[in-house]
């Protein structure tokens, strides 16, 4: 596939007056149609979507322009557009669209396409987007884990249920996961860097006086921590709470895992930790939040079709995996505490396999939104939206307000 938009060389003054040479990418149009965006051609550019969107910026608002670009197969703009990632898909736009063009869906599809586009290595992306590969991608982590346990572990340890008897530290367990994590990190780094570079060349090029990376990062952290924008679009909507719970549950679990990992090597921490250990408490609370959060999401997706937008294979895959992780994790602990050895070890095996899946597939699945969305927010606030411009706009607003309040007195 070639890039769909070719800038005319600036030195060619004749060409410059001819504007941008447009060559719609038909394959791209077909591809996004296939990925679930088959209604965008209905758009007649009334911009009701952009007017409705609670978080769309004032300059170059989305999703109208993304709709137009999609119709015209402007792949180059779409995959380099940070706005696509500012959307949290509340689907207000799809609900009000007079043409049933579902702008919310098209943004989701562009994000989906971007996971594929920026995937490294590329074939991994393909694997995750074709339902026909599902048996392979589902079975693969299980098979690998099975082989490893068969070779280096013990399927039926004796005595108290202690999971390191099943697969011991540091080899092969940590060895395996560090290897997988390295792969995921490298993949994510390459994908992330490609994306970051693309953003600079996209429809929102950096402004003249950018606020910079740190400022952008602060904005992104604020946003991720508070879900402020998410809450903007999902006022009184359970989607906001479910995502918040899932997110914090995941963070808690991530911290727990990291602490235990460090503890094992630095402090000779004995696992399993007692239930009242602060780390254990954090882990269990996190697990609960994660379970409730993902469970809610699953429920919402099944019951509220309009809000959920068009469900596609990769939505289900990701959500299923997350929910599976939560359930298997909680069950593993419960079974261990209940002292049912066979069941506990089996569940532990399942849980480990799912973690493996999550880590391997992280950069290519919908999970990668963690990476791309965060980068887009950093870029948007740090480079695309100018600090001074924002300030000026704020001042102008204030001035206007002032003028308005002064006038009645004068009269």
């Amino acid at each position: 596939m070639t890039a769909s938009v070719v800038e005319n060389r600036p030195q060619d003054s004749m060409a410059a007056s001819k504007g941008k040479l447009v060559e719609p990418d038909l394959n791209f149009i077909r591809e996004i149609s296939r990925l679930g965006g088959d209604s965008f051609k209905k758009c007649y550019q009334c911009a009701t979507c952009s007017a409705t969107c609670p978080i769309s910026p004032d300059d170059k608002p989305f999703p109208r322009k993304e709709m137009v670009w999609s119709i015209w197969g402007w792949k180059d703009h779409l995959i380099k557009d940070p706005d696509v990632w500012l959307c949290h898909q509340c689907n207000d736009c799809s609900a009000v669209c007079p043409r049933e063009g579902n702008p919310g869906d098209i943004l989701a599809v562009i994000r989906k396409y971007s996971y594929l586009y920026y995937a490294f290595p590329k074939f991994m992306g393909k694997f995750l987007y074709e339902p026909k590969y599902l048996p392979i991608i589902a079975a693969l982590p299980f098979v690998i884990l099975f082989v490893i346990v068969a070779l280096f572990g013990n399927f039926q340890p004796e005595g108290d249920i202690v999971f390191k008897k099943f697969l011991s530290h540091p080899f092969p367990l940590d060895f395996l996961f560090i290897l997988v994590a390295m792969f995921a990190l490298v993949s994510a780094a390459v994908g992330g860097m490609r994306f970051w570079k693309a953003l600079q060349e996209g429809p929102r090029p950096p402004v003249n006086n950018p606020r910079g990376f740190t400022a952008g990062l602060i904005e992104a952290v604020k946003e991720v921590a508070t879900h402020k924008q998410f809450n903007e679009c999902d006022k009184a909507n359970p989607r906001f709470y479910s995502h918040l719970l899932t997110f914090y549950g995941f963070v808690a679990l991530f911290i727990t895992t990291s602490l235990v990992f460090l503890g094992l090597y630095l402090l000779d921490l004995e696992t399993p930790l007692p239930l009242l250990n602060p780390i254990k408490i954090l882990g269990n609370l996190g697990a609960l939040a994660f379970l409730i959060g993902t469970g809610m999401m699953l429920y919402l997706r099944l019951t509220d079709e309009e809000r959920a937008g068009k469900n596609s294979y990769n939505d289900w895959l990701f959500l299923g995996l997350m929910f599976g992780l939560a359930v298997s994790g909680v069950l593993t602990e419960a079974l261990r505490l209940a002292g049912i050895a066979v069941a506990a070890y089996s569940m532990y095996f399942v849980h480990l396999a799912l973690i493996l899946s999550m880590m391997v597939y992280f950069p290519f699945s919908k999970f990668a939104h963690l990476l791309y969305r965060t980068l887009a927010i950093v870029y948007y606030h740090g480079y695309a939206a100018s600090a001074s411009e924002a300030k000026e706009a704020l001042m102008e607003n204030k001035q206007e307000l002032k003028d308005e309040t002064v006038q009645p007195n004068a009269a």
Partner: protein
Amino acid sequence: MEDKVGVYICTGCSIGEALDIEALSKVALDELKAPVCKTIADCMNGGLDVIRRDVESEGLNKIVLAACSPREDFGKDPFGQGIHVERVNLREGVVWCQPPNDEDTQMMAEDYLRMGIVKAQKTQPLDLFEEHERINKNLLVVGGGITGLTAAVEAAEAGYDVILVEKEVDLGGWMAKWYKSFPTFTPYQDLEDNGVSGLVEQVQSHPKITVRTSTEIAKIEGGPGLFDVVFKSNNGQPASSEPLRVGAVIQATGWKPFEPECLEKLGYKKFDNVVSSIQFEEMAKSGRLSRPSEGKPAKNVVFIQCEGSQDDEYFSYNSSVSSMVCLKQALYVREKSDNVKAFIFYDHFRTPGQYEDFYKRVQQDPGVFLSKGQVESVTEQDDGSLLVTVAGSMLGEKISIKADIVVLSLGMMPASADGEAIRAWIDAKAAVAKAEQEGNKVQEDVLALSRKPQPDEPILHLNYRQGPDLPVLEHHYPDSHFICFPYETRRTGIYAAGCVRSPMDALSCREDAAGAALKSIQCVEMTSRGEAVHPRSGDISYPEFFLQRCTQCKRCTEECPFGVLNEDAKGTPLPNATRCRRCGVCMGACPERIVSFKDYSVDMIASMIKKVEIPDEFDEKPRVLVLACENDAYPALDMAARKGLTYSPYVRVIPLRCLGSMNIVWVADALSRGFDGIIMLGCKYGDDYQCHFIRGSELADRRGVNVKEKLEQLALENERVELHQVEITDYEKIPQIINNFMDVIEEIGFNPFKGM
């Protein structure tokens, strides 16, 4: 036969309670010597039977029915054939718009009764014009395109003989050149075969249709039912000189492409790969959707809706046709290969009604790209491809597209000829030639000569004093009453249909053709019964000219909106009764008052005016004459009354067939009788006129110059005569107009001629 007038006063609908019926009867019996005057009531339940019995027993031949408005329909000949009915509007005209049992109300009712009776007395029995017995009912269809073919089939299927003439060698017109049609039925998704070949076969094999191809019209003489047509062959064959008689004509001459200058700016006729939508259609039909320059397959095809290409100066109007054609042709491109892209740039895009579904279907095609935008330029590249630059596109920035073929939409112009302009030009030529011969210079005629009409070659070659073709409106579309009578033209018995009448697609053309076929059948049938076609459908009166007193002023021949009157060499009018629509404009125009209908004449209205009792100055009761168009202003007054609106009791309203039939002498009569003022209520005129007779109120207004002269002669103020343009919906405005005028009269004072 001696006149016997029966006067019947209805007492229903609160007329009986509001008026002194006995006093009214006295007016009829004592003052106007009516032999019979009775009251009636309850018309819905046999109340009118009294009249029918009296007609039988008393031998009445004229009935004055003083009851409701004449707009209240009692059907044709309610009291028997040949019994003239004169309606006096006591209900809406008096009691519903005036206070009951008031002196002024009673005076008003009495005046109306006087006017009605005198009008009845003056009315003469109607007889049919003599030509009605010789009416030919065959139809002539001019043009063998989709409209002409459909009209011919429709008329033939209805049982009429049709002659179809086509100047080209083959039938089918433009449609025969087209590849496919856009959808014409639900769900409006797929292209259709255009079906014109089947229609051609149907026409050629129909026993009631005679087809003459390669034939044009040399001359048409006469009028509806009596048209004599001479044809000429345009392929070298000897022309038949024998005229053929037909009853009505359908002009379905279609359209011609309009190629304004702006197309050249877009590379039209400059670059091989820039083609018109017509050329593209031909390319599609032959299956070659490749670059015309060297036949390389086309990957990108750009369609430009030209009215969006520059400003609107080149296209002063646009239709939905080019939008639909554009969508259709985009599908030709997509049909060819899934990898070929079609771009459509437009400024206006119109897909009316259900066609919206087709628009949506094309829009849904992944390879069709639609955008509003102004095409700035089309330039040729080294490889023969074209670079199309579009500003103001939906993409928010200036863009350019590399195109293999650029298709430009053309405009549609009616294939009509401006009959009046051609006539004016011929007259100017003759005048200039004459002036040169005599050694004079006539500036005005030279000026007229410089305005040579385009095209200057007539199509119908009508032998009409007002020109050889239909009068046209702006943009050269034949003039008709667009809202009320779309197929009508200003030449009775000649109906315009299809693209010559308005830009339209094939589906509309077929509908138009069927409509025009039915109108022409209606025309020959009604003409054969001596009736007017429209809008005074069924009227058997017709104007008669007392030519001994004609001064050959040519006002009637010039002013008749329908070209009824030809002229002899001296300028004496030569009437053609079957062309007439009975509006009376000729009667209004004639300064010698030689034009009359048996039931509508200058004398009749003048007598009515003179019958109005004018109280003398000391009574402080002014009188104002209202001359109201009976098509719009008069019903609006009725509606005002029905809505309970009131107006001054000092007005006396006379309905006219058309304000154009208003003769200046009535103004003089009214003012010298002592009327204090005159209001004329006519229809809106100008380009979007509302007049049933095209120019009636405009002509009345033009006669205003003469009105002023009359006022000057009488040493009266100009303000005493007003003309207002009103619509039927202006019922709230008209009482206001009347009351305001009464204020004016009060200000300038009474007519000094009162009581003289």
